[in-house]
Structure formats: C-alpha cells, structure tokens
C-alpha cells in the first residue's frame, strides 16, 4: 500500500504503524483474509435482514439502500479524543449562547462581530423564536460536528450540524456489528463504550422538560414517517431510548399541552425529539401545507409547555456563511480562543474573495451556503474544465450563495478490500448532547469514509460508507 502519499494515513506512516493502531495491526496481520471477506459479507446480510437502511429521496416507491460498512475500525487515542471533545464542547456551548443572543438581545450584531445581513437574509432565522427562551435554556439538544484531520495534530471543523443531525444510529450499530463479528478483539483492545448514548440522550431530553411537567417527563420521537430517508434511525432511537415513536397526526393540543393518542385516550407529552424540519413543524406557523407537523405546537412552545429538541430556528447557527465567523463567535461568548480550527473560508459575497475564488476555481472546493449532503458543490481538483466553467457562471450569478475553501488533504484510514488494506479518506461526526448546565459527548462518533479511491466525498448519498470509531481507554 502507498505509504508515501501526500495524505496523512492514520494507521500507517513511513515510520511504521501509528501508536493507536499498534494492537489492531498486530491482530489484523494474523487474520485470514478469506475469513474477513466472509465476515464482511455476513455483516452486509445482517444489515439487510434487520432493515438498517436509508431511503433514497426523489424516487417513486423509494429504494432502500444499505450504507456500506467497512470492518477496519478508525482508532483514536485517548489524548487525541480528549482534545477533540473539549473543542466540540466549547463550540457547542458557543452555538447555544449565540442562538440565545440572536433570538434575544443580539449583542453580537450590535458589537459588529457578525454582520447583521447574515441573519437578516437567512431563511433559517425564525422570527417566531424572538423574545423567547426554550425550557432549560437549551437550543441544540443534539449537535453533530463534522471534523476532518490533515495531520498528526491538525483537526478542522468542517460543519456544525445544529438542526437535526443524523447518523448516530450507525455509530451504535457499527459498534454492535464489530462486537458480533470480532468479540475477541474487544477483549484484547480496551475501547471506550458508545452504548450509553441512548440512555444519555433520554436523560438529556428529560432534563430539558418544561417546568410544568409532572412526574417523569414523557418523551417522544417525532418522525415524518416510514418514507423518510432516516426513518430507520428514528425508530432505532425511539426503541433504544424506550420511548414512543410518533407522527404529527398522533399528536394534538389538549388542555394547553401537546398530547398523544394512545389506546386509552390522550396522554400529555413533555418533550418532543423531532426529526421533522422547521418548515414542516407547525402548519399554523410555517408551511401551511405541511401534513407532517403539529398545528399550534409553536403556540404551546411559546407558552412554555413543551420542549422541542432541537429548538426551531437553530439552523441560523450552522450554515456555511455563519461557519466562517465561528472562531469569532466562540471567542465572543466563551472568552477563549477556539480549540478546533476552522477551514479557511472565502465568502463569495465579498468582492475580493469572489475575485480570488474565480481565479483559483480548479484548486478550491465551492459550496452552497445553505447546501448539505454534498449536493451542489464543486470540488475543483476533481472537476473537468466544463464543470468548472458551468460552476463559474453559477457563482457569478449568485455570489452570496457560495463560499469556497481550499481542498483539504483529508487524512486516510485503510478499508478492507479483496486485495488487502487500502487507504481511503475519512471524516468524523461526534455527537454532543446538551442539557441545562451539561454537555455530554459519547467517545467516538460516526466515521464516514469515501469508498472510491481518491474521492473526498464521504456522504452516504454519494457513495460513502461508515466505520466503527474507537476511542482507546488509554
């Protein structure tokens, strides 16, 4: 395998196997490749049989696909993780402070740290959240922070997912699968547990219950339904937390609260972990055509009688234009320098930046400010001349719609192939749980891997796969 690539391989350097991978490497070298190949097939059959799939959008009778799973774990040492976790926690704390500020006094705009136009022109800014504090003061109960690595100590945040981040079910299922496939590995190598996540999630949601909740808070997961691409995750999380999975039409307003229809009548709900987007949450407040939401839920919310996790309007903190100000935002609210680095970001809304970007398109990654899932972006170094020219026109037509970043030399981790190990680019999405006064991050997260050789796009909708992510105990 190529050990002298310009990319940082997290397992093998020219000098040998990196420390966190030492024990695994020893174990791997003793394995029979044919047996591993068979294990890999078994894992796929298992995922298929148990319905661990995601639906593909925009197709009649949507096809259900597997997210390919690679059996080589991505391994982080305890000290690497500790630094990452501190950085994520700091960032998540800043995001919550930012959201409270933006929807109340807007000190950060008054101070001129973040330009007002970024909020004023932002579709994710929900006026309905102004002059209001959610129960417990928590805006983002769950955050998934996308992190990439370029060197031994070089970690960058690529994106803050503060709306309804998904993927945590794959983090849990991947570990479960590894435990099933290679139990002996886990007795040889001490890996920190991720299995507490559902329990922590429930505790965190319960801790944010509204003040008028009586007894143990009643939590539900709100899903758009079985045809949603992440439905599997919604049912998985409800199941793992031991709470009900509901759809909008199961809920109604009763006695000034939100109530769910049970076989014995209606029962009050205290906390809704919703996986329905803001626009569809309340037809009385937002998209009136929505059949997925709960009419009037915003009225109950503003009365302080229901917790919605994540709070509506959190998207104002995670688009790519706001992202470019994140170091300033972290410093403004925490008084500390950001622990995790931001990728250098050119805002095409600024004429100088636009000129630079147009000049250097073939070396940059250009993204839509509000885009996600790897759609609508240009990866300069991988694009053809025609693609670059087409994108140039789009960029000129709506510069404020784009930001550009240098192409990062994403680190690689080997995947298992028929020909043995082969390096592929990866990212990492740890999941932070926020409750009043506490932030909890399960050690690890979801490692996404670009399965095609040389590809930098890890999104599952674009041919990415996943790996189990290990944080070593020591």
């Amino acid at each position, binding site marked *: 395998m190529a050990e002298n690539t310009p990319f940082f391989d997290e397992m093998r350097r020219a000098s040998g196997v990196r420390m966190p991978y030492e024990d695994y490497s020893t174990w791997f070298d003793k394995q029979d490749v044919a047996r591993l190949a068979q294990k890999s097939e078994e894992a796929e059959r298992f995922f298929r049989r148990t319905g661990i799939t995601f639906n593909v959008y925009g197709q009649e009778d949507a096809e259900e696909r597997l997210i390919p799973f690679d059996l080589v774990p991505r391994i982080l040492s305890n000290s690497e993780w500790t630094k990452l976790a501190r950085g994520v926690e700091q960032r998540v704390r800043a995001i919550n402070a930012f959201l409270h500020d933006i929807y109340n006094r807007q000190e950060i705009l008054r101070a001129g740290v973040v330009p007002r136009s970024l909020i004023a022109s932002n579709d994710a800014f929900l006026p*309905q959240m*102004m*002059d209001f504090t959610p129960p417990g003061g928590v805006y983002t109960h769950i955050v998934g922070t996308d992190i990439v690595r370029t060197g031994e100590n070089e970690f960058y945040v690529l994106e803050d997912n503060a709306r309804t981040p998904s993927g945590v079910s794959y983090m849990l299922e991947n570990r479960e699968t590894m435990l099933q496939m290679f139990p002996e590995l886990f007795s040889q190598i001490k890996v920190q547990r991720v299995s507490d996540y559902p329990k922590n999630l429930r505790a965190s949601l319960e801790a944010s219950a509204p003040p008028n909740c009586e007894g143990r808070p009643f939590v539900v997961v709100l899903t758009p339904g079985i045809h949603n691409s992440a439905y599997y995750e919604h049912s998985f999380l409800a199941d793992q937390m031991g709470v009900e999975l509901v759809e909008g039409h199961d809920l109604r*307003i009763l006695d000034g609260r939100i109530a769910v229809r049970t076989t014995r009548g209606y029962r009050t709900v205290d906390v809704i972990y919703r996986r329905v987007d803001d626009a569809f949450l309340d037809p009385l407040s937002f998209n*009136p055509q929505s059949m997925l939401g709960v009419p009037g839920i915003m*009225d*109950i919310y*503003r009365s302080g009688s229901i917790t919605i996790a994540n709070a509506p309007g959190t998207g104002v903190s995670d688009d790519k234009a706001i992202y470019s100000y994140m170091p300033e935002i972290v410093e403004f609210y925490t008084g500390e320098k950001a622990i995790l680095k931001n990728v250098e970001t050119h805002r095409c809304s600024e004429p100088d930046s636009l000129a630079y970007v147009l000049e250097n398109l073939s070396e940059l990654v250009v993204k839509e400010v509000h885009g996600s899932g790897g759609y609508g972006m240009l990866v300069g170094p991988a694009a053809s001349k025609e693609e670059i020219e087409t994108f140039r026109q789009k960029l000129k037509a709506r510069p404020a719609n784009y930001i550009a970043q240098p192409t990062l030399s994403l680190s690689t981790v080997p995947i298992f192939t028929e020909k043995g190990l082969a390096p592929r680019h990866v990212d990492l999405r740890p999941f932070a749980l926020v409750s009043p006064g506490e932030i909890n991050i399960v050690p690890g997260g979801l490692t996404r891997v670009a399965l095609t050789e040389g590809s930098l796009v890890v999104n599952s909708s674009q041919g990415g796969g996943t790996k189990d992510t290990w944080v070593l105990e020591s």
Partner: protein
Amino acid sequence: MLISVSHQTTYTYEAPVSYALQRIRLQPCNSALQTVRNWSIDVEGGTLETRYADHHGNQVGLICAEKGAQSLKISVGGEVETNDLSGILGKVYGRAPLWYFQQPTALTEAGPLLSDLADTVSGYANELEQFHALSTAILDKVPWVLNETHSETTAEEAVGQASGVCQDHANIFVAAARRLGKPARYVSGYLFMEGRINQDASHAWAEVHIGDLGWVGFDVSNGISPDERYVRLAIGRDAHDAAPVSGLRMGEGDESLIVSLQVQQ
C-alpha cells in the same frame, strides 16, 4: 376617550368539525396611546387552550374547537381609555430589532409598481411630511373598494389592481416605507366612527419608525394619523403577522364566518 368594544367572530361548520384551531390576537395592550380598563375573551364551542406573548409582543390565544362542534363563537370586548397623541407611540421597543421591520415579507415584497409609488415621495426632507405624502399617494393610487382583494392579496397586487381595503393600504404603506429605508409595521385594531356603532370588520393601519419620534401611526384609508378614536390590537410585519384571527381546520365541508362588531363611546 373611553371606547367600548364588543366583537364576535362566529364560524359555522357545514359538517361537524373533527379538529379546528383558531389563533387569536384580540387582546389590546397598554401603551402611551391606550389603557385597557377591562377586557374579556369568551369562547363557545371550543376551549381557550393557551395564552402567550408572541415575538412581536402581541397577546395571543389559541382556541381549539370541540370535537363535533358545528359552530365556534369567539366573543371579545371591553373598555379601552385612549389618548390623542397624533399617532405617536414613541420609542417603545420589544425584542424585535428595528432592522427586522425593514425586512420585506411575502405579502409586502416591493415589486416595480410599489417601488414607483414609493419613489414619488422620495424627495421629502421632512420625514413626517414624507409619510403623510406617501399615505395620500397610496389612497390616490389605490382607492378604498370593498371585496376586490382578499387576505392573501399582496401589496404589489393591490397596487396593480388599484383597489383595496384598509388591510391592503396598510400592507402597501409598510412595503413602501421599507422601500424608502424605514422600519415599518402593520397594526390591527378598532376604530370608533361617529354614527356607526355596528361595523363589518376590524380596522388596520401602519406605523413607521421616524428618527426622533419613534413609532408613528398612519391610517391610509382615512388619510390621517390615528387619534383617540383608535384602539391598537396587534402588530406585525404584515397583515398575516397581526391577523386578529387565523386558523386551521380538519374535516369535511365548508365553513362560514359571521363577524359582529360594535364600537362605541
């Protein structure tokens, strides 16, 4: 002036309703312009589920119709003491910042017609004069005509068809004022009219934020700034935000709406 209001909104459903919600902004608030002496909200055929202050500071109620109800009657009323301050509410601010009131909404997006209209008054040095001139210009261009517009008519559309009611006038005014760079907002409320106790609908006007004065009201339909005959109910960026009643219903059949409104001294 002590104004007495009695306002009934009655929905009659063709088929028994399975689930219906009405969001009401029918509770006046105290300000320099008015003091609420007493006010009540009664609901027949439904329940007032919750009350809260919305993001514009309006007192909002949410009503849920009883299952199987064939009508829902919302009765509000009371007495409000008003002052004539020439429509000047003053420098009174909620959490919503001034820039927020400079943002257009779907109903108040300025197209070419509205921009032309706003441009006709762009030359004034004195802001009060400018907005009185705007008010006059709007009424000239869009005379008051009943039933040619509806609750979804945009400001631009109303200018285009050159007719409208107080709601359209207020939408056009806020759209034009924003076009001229000023924070502006929509106001819903009641108007006492000598000799017309029984009225068909509540009223609407606009407020614009002028440098030294703060918020100042303009009633385009009547060509004046509000005086002691006006009772403010709710504000917002457009007619939707400040709508006294807005709702949603599940079930078959049509509904009909009857409004009964008495405003007297």
